């Protein structure tokens, strides 16, 4: 399904500067599109411009993160200084009022701040302009501008054109059961205005729909779906707060699928934080309107609305058969049970044959697998005195992320029918339930049930 502004089913969210090496080079061919958080654009526009024009060469869009300003201001504070984080401050200054006044005053933004239509429209204009022009200006005003212009004129690269996001996202706010009734009209007013602006200028506009899990089970959901379905955006970008597919109940996943289906009646749907379950759902073609799934590097298949950004990723091994990240001790136990340590051939056959594993696993799989679990021990103060904690080395984290990226590429490219997919999930759960416990494999059964329903 060709969708305006969506380059393909596999979208990766750019998280931190350290992610660059896993989005470029050989990895640039593993995904279709980038999504970049606005605070990163505000924080390091030059590096992102270089990433997009020269390294990754990928279409992109920007998540304007306007929801950040409705939460308590402590969520925007720097852990070091206690003041507003620098990247957030830049964003606030770019977006202006009605956000700038309250936020710089240490206050949260409220729905009533958007009562004035003129103020709301000006805000929308600035949020769209930020997405449209920040990176482009960075290139045009850089010392390399003439070089970019030369490349473009010679037809060697479309540098300036590449700086144009493939779609623009209207300002949006988070909807939970208690406050969503007040924010929904603000979201719809912003969406409506941006769609009119977009239509005039032939720019695709996407609407980001960010809801709490309790909304999926509440009466508010119908109002949300009805209100959004009356609009015709290029796409709906859906984010259910903190929904981790491998920890969710059948009821919750069914509700998420219903939401995709209901919104999908009006426009294509992108799951902004998803894992294998949504990718497999996409493969089933049961929801033709589900066109793409976004994940971050390794740790971003789900995300809570607060804190806004941040979070320390830990090294875990993504076990392809289980479609889940495991701490290294559980990964070792699982691989033993699956017979992956018997020989290199067995490892490649039963565990993973990605480029990273093919390089890491050589003569002795059990010993070689240690590369995914090398740590440095540090003595730190714990609750009951000094304790030793292990921290994965940089190399360990890089092995884990490279493996993850290769496996994700395979998952998106798979074309297995629903029957074999569900059978494989059932088989691996059966094999691993004794070592990982019921809760470690329960998602396999839940996913199979929902995929089949």
């Amino acid at each position: 399904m060709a969708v305006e502004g969506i380059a393909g089913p596999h979208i990766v969210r750019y998280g931190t500067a350290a992610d660059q090496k896993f989005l470029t080079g050989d990895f640039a061919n593993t995904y279709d599109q980038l999504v970049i958080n606005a605070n990163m654009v505000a924080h390091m526009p030059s590096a992102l411009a270089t990433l997009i024009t020269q390294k990754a060469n990928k279409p992109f869009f920007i998540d304007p993160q306007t929801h950040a300003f409705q939460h308590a201001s402590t969520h925007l504070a720097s852990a070091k200084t206690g003041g507003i984080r620098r990247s957030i401050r830049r964003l606030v200054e770019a977006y202006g009022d009605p956000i700038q006044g309250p936020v710089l005053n240490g206050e949260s933004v409220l729905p009533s701040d958007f009562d004035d239509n003129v103020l709301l429209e000006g805000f929308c204009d600035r949020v769209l302009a930020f997405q449209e022009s920040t990176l482009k200006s960075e290139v045009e005003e850089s010392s390399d501008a003439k070089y970019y212009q030369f490349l473009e004129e010679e037809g060697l690269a479309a540098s300036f054109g590449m700086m144009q996001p493939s779609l623009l996202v209207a300002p949006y706010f988070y909807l939970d059961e208690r406050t969503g009734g007040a924010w929904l009209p603000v979201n719809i007013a912003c969406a409506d205005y941006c769609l009119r602006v977009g239509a005039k200028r032939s720019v695709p506009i996407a609407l980001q729909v960010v809801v709490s899990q309790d909304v999926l089970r509440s009466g508010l959901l119908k109002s949300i779906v009805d209100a959004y379905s009356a609009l015709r955006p290029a796409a709906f970008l859906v984010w259910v707060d903190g929904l981790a597919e491998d920890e969710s109940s059948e009821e919750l996943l069914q509700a998420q699928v219903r939401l995709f289906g209901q919104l999908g009646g009006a426009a294509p749907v992108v799951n902004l934080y998803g894992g294998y379950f949504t990718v497999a759902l996409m493969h089933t073609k049961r929801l033709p309107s589900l066109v793409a799934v976004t994940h971050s590097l390794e740790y971003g298949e789900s995300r809570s609305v607060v804190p806004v950004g941040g979070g320390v990723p830990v090294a875990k091994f993504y076990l392809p058969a289980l479609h889940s990240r495991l701490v290294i001790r559980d990964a070792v136990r699982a691989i033993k049970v699956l017979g992956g340590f018997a020989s290199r051939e067995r490892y490649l056959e039963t565990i993973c044959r990605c480029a990273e594993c093919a390089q890491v696993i050589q003569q002795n799989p059990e010993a070689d697998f240690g590369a995914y679990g090398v740590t440095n021990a540090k003595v730190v103060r714990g609750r009951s005195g000094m304790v030793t904690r292990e921290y994965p080395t940089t190399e360990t984290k890089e092995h884990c992320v490279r493996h993850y990226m290769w496996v994700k590429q395979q998952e998106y490219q798979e074309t297995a029918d629903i029957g074999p997919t569900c059978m494989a999930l059932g088989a691996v759960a059966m094999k691993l339930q004794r070592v990982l416990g019921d809760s470690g494999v329960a998602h396999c059964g839940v996913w199979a049930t929902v995929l089949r329903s």
Partner: protein
Amino acid sequence: MSATCVKFGSERELADAVISRLMLVVDVIFSREAPVVGRSADVALCRADELHTIEFKLHDWRQAIRQAIDHQLAADFAYVCMPKRRITDAMRDAFVTAGVGLLFFAEAEWPFEIVFEATRSTGTWCVAYERLKAHIQQEQHGS
């Protein structure tokens, strides 16, 4: 040597009492707070070329068993050490099923009374085993 009913205010006190005695034993090298694949064993010791881990607990033996099961990735034998207490059937079943041994603190040169023997771990990961062994040796040389 039979276990004694010494009262301990904390697990650290219990560990300290054990350590002070282990330091006098000549054929044992050991390490406190030894890293074990993302966890930490209160004590890891090497005796007769075999690795043992010991988790100290005053009360919560279920939690101790869960921790000791993780230690089985890196040690030949994983134990829990507690002050002397009544053994329930549930406790006995849980320790035996997990293959985790139970020790009571004994006020003697060798500070343990074996209540249940640990079974030799069949799930050791060679990488974790070698790392733990190296850690104990390194600690010993550093002390």
